[in-house]
């Protein structure tokens, strides 16, 4: 390694060291600081039956059994928050495909769903934040029983639950 190259790497190393020191220090004192290791989002779990959800402006998380029960009863609208490519390769039967960005652009996408109909959002699993983003967004739109199937698609598939393939449908007007 020539002295020139060594000098350049030393410069780059100094900058990385300084950035690390400043970044960690600032992250510690900043009110917007975040934990250095990302943890799955914190959600509030629905603690009772989801079949007759009481009014709740906040979207609540549900587990796979509650999600399966809602699907069997057929009253809830399932919304897949993942991207269309993933949806096409498999999704919960009857689920709509509405990525959160799309809903933000066009809130009319779920206008045909009455506000008191239970809505279940999901994405690939606990580490994806699309289902919670979407659930909170829908709850903020005034829907009164929004549920987030937190474990999402991966657990659904692992448990051998019914799935459906193919391109998305939209809510029927």
């Amino acid at each position, binding site marked *: 390694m020539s*002295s*020139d190259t060594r*000098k*350049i*790497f*030393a*410069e*780059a*190393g*100094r*900058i*990385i060291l*300084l*950035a*690390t020191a*400043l*970044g*960690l220090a*600032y*992250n510690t004192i*900043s009110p*917007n*600081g*975040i*934990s*250095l*290791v*990302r943890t799955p989002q914190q959600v509030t779990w629905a603690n009772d039956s989801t079949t007759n959800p009481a009014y709740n402006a906040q979207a609540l998380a549900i587990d796979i059994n509650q999600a399966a029960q809602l699907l069997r009863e057929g009253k809830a609208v399932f919304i897949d928050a993942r*991207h*269309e*490519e993933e949806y096409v390769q498999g999704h919960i039967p009857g689920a709509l495909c509405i*990525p959160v*960005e*799309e809903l933000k652009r066009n809130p009319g996408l779920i206008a045909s769903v009455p506000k008191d109909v239970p809505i279940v959002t999901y994405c690939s699993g606990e*580490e*994806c*934040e699309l289902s919670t983003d979407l659930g909170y967004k829908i709850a903020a739109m005034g829907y009164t029983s929004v549920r987030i199937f937190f474990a999402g698609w991966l657990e659904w598939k692992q448990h051998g639950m019914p799935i459906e393939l193919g391109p998305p449908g939209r809510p029927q007007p």
Partner: protein
Amino acid sequence: MKLGVQTVLGNKWLDYALRYALGFIFVYAAVEKVAQPEDFARAIANYHILPFFAINIFAVLLPWIELLTGIALIGKVNVRGSALLIIAMLVVFIVAITIALVRGLDISCGCFGTASASKVGLSRLLEDIVMLIAAVGIYVSPRNRTLRTSAAEIFGTTLAATPCDRDRSSS
């Protein structure tokens, strides 16, 4: 041809233009990410490239590297080291955006923080490629070589190593 490129890059005003433009872009891009690391972390998470545990540390440190390299380019300190880091970052960004485009992800770029809310797309890719060319230009520009390096190249290392070489920088 090589001489021609070196002559053009040796132009004082081009050197200023490249360093200031790229420097300000990187400082600008860093500011909101430094202020809102959670937004940036979410933008990174949407790419589905980094392992989950690594996202936050990346979101905390990367904006600071952008900020410091930007300032260094403007202030003309550690220019080549900074240019090297910027080249490395831009390559990472280009790869990430390409992967997102290939996967057809409809996500916010996160390039300039999330407030600008620009989507991942071909124009983002082109921007990064233009910046990459500028960064390489800064890196290879004879203007940003140190005095010692130039002397060593011209006269060989013996002269540069002599004690009476007053132009040697201490570090």
